[in-house]
């Protein structure tokens, strides 16, 4: 737990979608969502985004969507959600 409510929630969504066999014990908010991290494939990334939208409301513009930078780690995703909620 980081003490940051949004980040904690994003991380728990990522953890639940990645599944236990995909997660290193030292995985944290700065672990990459993709290769060498949570190993999420594109379908899992989509699931993470949709789960976050269900939790926090619409986050991304339908036209432009999320960028690769936003989808780098749980922290970058949480930061994007925070910016949208402001």
């Amino acid at each position, binding site marked *: 737990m980081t003490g940051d409510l949004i980040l904690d929630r994003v991380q728990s969504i990522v953890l639940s979608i990645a599944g236990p066999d995909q997660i290193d014990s030292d995985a944290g908010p700065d672990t990459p969502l993709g290769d060498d991290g949570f190993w999420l494939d594109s*379908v*899992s990334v*989509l699931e993470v985004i949709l789960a976050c939208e269900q939790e926090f409301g619409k986050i991304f513009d339908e036209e432009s*969507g999320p*960028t690769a*930078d936003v989808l780098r780690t749980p922290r970058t995703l949480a930061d994007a959600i925070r910016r949208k909620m402001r």
Partner: protein
Amino acid sequence: MTRTEKSRLPSAGGTTLSRTRRLVFRSLLSLLDVLPWPWGEELLAGLFVARAFVGVRRLRAALEWASRQPGSRGRWRLAVALCWHHGRFVGRAALLGLRHPEQFRRHLVLRGEQHLRAVVGATILLGFHLGPPNTAVALQVLGHRVRAMGAKRISRGWAREAWQPFQGPEALLWVPGDWHRGAAMYQALHVLQGGGTVSLAADGIGRPAFALPLSGGTVRISSGWLELRRRTGAQVLPVLKHLDGRTLVLTVHPPLPPCASPLEREVEVCREILQRLLDDYVRQFPEQCYSLAFPG
């Protein structure tokens, strides 16, 4: 595949040698692009044949592929045709010598257009890495509104002014900055939810759904399109393409049966249909199946 297995895979990033090769190859494409179509494409096809004879590994793979194909066609002839077509497809992907979309359109035939016209609302055009590239571009050139799942293409040909509309957000699932497949999936979902049409490869990278064993190789079908279909109810039309001489022939097949439950049954029905389609394709056009002969 487990995480440990994944981490053992060779890195896609290149060594200095492969970076140099890429640079040389890009320069070669730029040089060939100066020639009028289809000279550059045909020269490149010839170079791919020559390369197979220099680096024997590729020739061996082509011969092995050819030997696994039924029929009376000579093994060597088929192996050479395979390398030749591979070169031609690489040239076509870079739009070698194709100055204008109209030039592309003149050598384009669309079969099964009635299936495209019959579908209403969200549609997934399901392509494969068999045969020539540019499925979505071909349909766009013919005036169909299709968004392609894929990164912006980089080549001298694609940089031409006339091709810019085919590189923009109306033609591609647009991911600002670096390409990201998950971000493109999100885009695809919204295009489909809005009743649009998305073109994507069934055998791209991603979570595997099932495998189709074919004569000489296996096509691994990924699950992204199944996920999008389940979430949006989109109709899925398989699209195959081949070269007939210099003409790109695009064949749109009837839609796959709608989503059903249980999921296993739905996947099985799709698998059976795709197996039949790809078996037929490999039987008819074995020389155009470079991705099966040269996997990876």
